[in-house]
């Protein structure tokens, strides 16, 4: 597989997810403006922070006049789950030059990771050399571009859109489309149930900590069962 083909695999994998991301980006643009963030800063946040749910939270905290350290800490907690993605892709990126690692870390979002991971697993089983980094770059660039464009749309025209068109449901649907086919063992099934149940049970925790702890619960249950069956 050539680098171009690998890039295109990642790009095509992330395309359906843009269906879910685009409305999310538009809504972010609207929320940011409503929070009193100037249009330029709202756009800049999409490139500087580049993390959907954390940007929502940050915009709301800025609007509410939250203290600097509290706002920064909240964003860090919301994004903690990305450390899991970092650990997950780290082995396949181990031999790359530093500039590749920095670029791919910057582009490592829920959606880009989710879109790329089935192809990364296939790539790891396939003939070497690995093209995993090109796949990740494809999904990362695709998601990044979609996020910038939809944020811009939100900033420019968002205030004239109807409030709820139900399009934000596309994102959970997309994650379902990715996760369900991955569940091929009893341990993976148990991990999903544990993660979902814990995330729901802990949803009242601040800063979306329930998401991170739910994911950890899924990892623990999966690993405990996986060791028995593997």
């Amino acid at each position, binding site marked *: 597989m050539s680098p171009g083909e690998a890039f295109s695999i990642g790009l095509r994998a992330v395309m359906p997810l843009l269906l879910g991301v685009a409305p999310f980006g538009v809504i972010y643009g609207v929320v940011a403006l409503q929070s009193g963030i100037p249009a330029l800063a709202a756009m800049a946040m999409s490139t500087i922070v580049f993390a959907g749910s954390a940007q929502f939270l940050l915009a709301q905290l800025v609007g509410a006049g939250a203290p600097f350290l509290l*706002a920064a800490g909240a964003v860090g907690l919301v*994004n903690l789950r990305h450390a899991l*993605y970092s*650990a997950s892709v780290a082995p396949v990126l181990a031999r790359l030059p530093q500039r590749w690692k920095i670029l791919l870390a910057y582009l490592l979002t829920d959606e880009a990771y989710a879109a790329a991971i089935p192809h990364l697993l296939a790539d790891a089983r396939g003939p070497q050399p690995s093209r995993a980094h090109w796949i990740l770059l494809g999904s990362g660039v695709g998601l990044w571009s979609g996020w910038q464009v939809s944020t811009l749309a939100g900033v420019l025209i968002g205030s004239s859109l109807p409030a709820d068109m139900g399009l934000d449901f596309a994102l959970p649907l997309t994650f379902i*489309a990715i*996760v369900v086919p991955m569940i091929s063992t009893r341990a993976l099934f148990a991990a999903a149930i544990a993660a979902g149940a814990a995330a729901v049970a802990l949803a009242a925790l601040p800063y979306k900590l*329930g998401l991170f702890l*739910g994911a*950890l619960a899924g990892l623990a249950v999966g690993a405990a069962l996986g060791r028995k069956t593997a």
Partner: protein
Amino acid sequence: MTLWGLMLVCGVLTFAIRYSFIAAEGHYRPPPWFALLLPFVPVAALTALTAPELLLVGGALDVGAGNVRLWAGLVAIVVAAIWRNTLLTIGSGFLALFLLQQL
């Protein structure tokens, strides 16, 4: 200016979290159990993101007939399990949501 400073700090923080394990790879020896966790990251993290979207309405658990997102999501889960097709899954979920909202 505080807003720009805050965004910069948040950007650096977010990047540091994403870069953490990628940068550390090869420079540390993770405990053996750590490798056992990694295969479960995609399923666990994405389910933790998705389950509250389906099961919670206004922050409270709702498994009643009125929670149309839950039932539409279940339709999508069944479609995904059978056909393993992204667009078909999203399409069927939206169709189910639309039909349920008409009831």
